[in-house]
């Protein structure tokens, strides 16, 4: 009996902690249009995805900090990132970034997600683009 009680307590404590960790670590995905419409949270980390706009990549010579614009061709959100980029980051390519919005509405990325394959487009990005196309045709 004692053993069962001990186990039950242990399991419920860990289940509680697990759910809490889960809640804190959920990362939502938003398209640039959703961010522009103010649907994205300003107080927590989320992911944004779209295409890297042509000619939008700017970097000060020799600096690790990079600015570019991510777009779904409906809205455009400026993104800033400091660090080494994944291999397949390029203009006119899909990108997913994890980070948060600053007070000026630009997205400060902590991580730019790497893709494994140049033909592969993140489904989230594909969907964001499709959604944006739909909105335009209305």
């Amino acid at each position, binding site marked *: 009996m004692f053993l069962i009680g001990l186990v039950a307590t242990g*399991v419920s404590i860990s289940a509680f902690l697990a759910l809490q960790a889960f809640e804190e670590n959920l990362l939502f*995905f938003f398209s640039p249009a959703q961010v522009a419409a103010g649907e994205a949270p300003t107080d927590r980390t989320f992911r944004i995805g779209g295409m890297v706009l042509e000619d939008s990549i700017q970097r000060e010579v020799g600096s690790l900090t990079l600015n570019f614009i991510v777009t779904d061709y409906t809205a455009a959100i400026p993104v800033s990132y400091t660090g080494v980029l994944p291999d397949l980051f390029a203009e006119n390519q899909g990108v997913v970034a994890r980070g948060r919005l600053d007070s000026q509405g630009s997205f400060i990325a902590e991580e730019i997600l790497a893709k494994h394959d140049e033909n592969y487009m993140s489904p989230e990005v594909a969907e964001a683009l499709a959604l944006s196309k739909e909105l335009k045709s209305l």
Partner: protein
Amino acid sequence: MIPEIGQFALILALGLAFIQAIIPLLGALWRRGDLIAIARPAATGQFIFVMAAFIVLCHSFLNNDFSVLYVVTNSNTALPTPYKIAAVWSAHEGSLLLWILILSTWTLAVAVGSRRLPDEFAARVLGVLGIVSVGMLLFTLLTSNPFERIFPSAIEGNDLNPLLQDPGLVMHPPILYAGYVGLAVPFAFAVAALLTGKLSQDWARWTRPWTVSAWMFLTVGIALGSWWAYYELGWGGWWFWDPVENASFMPWLAGTALIHSLAVTERRGIFKSWTILLAITAFSLSLLGTFLVRSGILVSVHAFASDPARGLFILLLLGTITGGSLTLYAFRARHLTVVEGGFRLVSRESFLLMNNILLVVATAAVLFGTLYPLFLDALGMGKISVGPPYFNAVFVIPMLPLAALVGVGMHTSWLRMSGEPLSRRLLFPAGIALIVGLIFPFIVFGQAGALTLIGIVTGLWVIASSLLEPIKRALRKDSAPMPLTRGQWGMYLAHLGVGVFILGATVTSSYTIETDSSAVLGDRWQVGEYELVFRDLRRIEGVNYEATEGEFEVWRDNQLMTILRPQKRIYRVQTSPMTEAAIDVGWGRDLFVALGEPLGAGAWSLRVQIKPLIRFIWLGALIMAFGGLLAVMDPRYRVQRTREQGNLRKKPTKTI
């Protein structure tokens, strides 16, 4: 013509799989020896035809047969030969064929190795394996035929994804699959036991070596994958809690629980239905894993829907195998001959029970975090992903107490404690772990957080406790109580591996120095205790790629330690850039340099990392697997037939 032979061989294999699935099971039901006898030839024949199909596919790759769609998409004339072979299992269709080949290899091994078992039982096991094989072969032939032709044939292939052009990736899938698929064997044993309605302790003894073998491959396969991700994905992480990784890790967790509960079932005849349930769970999780990875469902539930045939088939197969076996379990588990036996709180049984509970909790938490985003997406409730901090938390919470208990559990006896009290025996290893663990981090690294200390002490505790008995034996050779059996050696070694892993994972996670920096030729800068000099930058011509290679000198205390040459490759066919990190490998630490991208004015972005004890992570996994190997080789798994025939009396069971 030749590819058609491959397809024809697969169809014949399917026919034999049907025979293997149906006739032996009927034979066992009706007690007809002639039908039972068909099981082994059918399994052998199936293996031969699957092997033939596999060889044909290899042949198409080696001869650049660009009339085969799968070869066109995954190979190229300029691809080096070893990678042409690896390309066979680099994508969906071919890796399914590899899956089937490995399943039929395991089946053949069971057919040969089960000669010591009662014929009726062996027939049931082979029949169940036949059912799994039928499902997979149908899946391949109906939805994912690797031999599909295109007309007109292509002139050149699209090449193998550069990421996969790596020795680690040549080995990783076959070994991982050997583990994944190997869990089909304990599954088949479990279902056969349910069909028989009887579960003897012999059953557990028959099942154990198969389970441990599969677990061994799975351990090495996961470690290889982690190692590959570390040096090839370019950025120095060793575990990402990526759904694909979780897919292989969940069967490992369940398999580990299974190994331990099998020990109880073998020794004490209890935990029977729990063991059966774990065997079913472990294999279902590996099926789930295969499909999560292979169906495209992970990329998106929508990609999944884009090929409804595959998606539907997958669900059907999972539903049939898992659902069918669980239904059987629901009806039959109660009828298993239950020998109830109690045990005390401080006994090996109760420690193994806790091991099982904690492992199952960890499995469930990982499963939840992996599947929840898929469900939410499927229901159209938004796109989310679950971050590594969740997995770290839910994994470490049950694993820390587990590791602490392992150190005690190893030294408990069945039924109850006996001899020297546990506490006195374990005082020594506990003391060493505490003293070394609390002092060493401060001496070597200067500082330590509470979690780091807990991790290090736990790792050392498991190591010290695993070494206790072997060292005792080594020190007092003559008065040693009893020599260790191979099974015991295996257990101590595997747990030693766990300790080494914990130590490595904790130290690496806590003390990695990671810097992203910008440098021009001739720059000299400090990272940790090392000084790096950017010496040279040049172009390199590879077999099927061109690369920019940087040259970095690494100095410490005014002594040149090594020269590192990381590359940025562009593969000619797919023209995608690839980072090849340069790593100075050491027991104490890895020094990792990766070339980022040009930043203008001759500057390059660089990632430099110092990762202390990272080798211990994979070393720990290898030690675990080696422990498994020793346990499998324990002679007591070999004398079964004679024992059953009563020629040999059962030895008193004091081992493990």
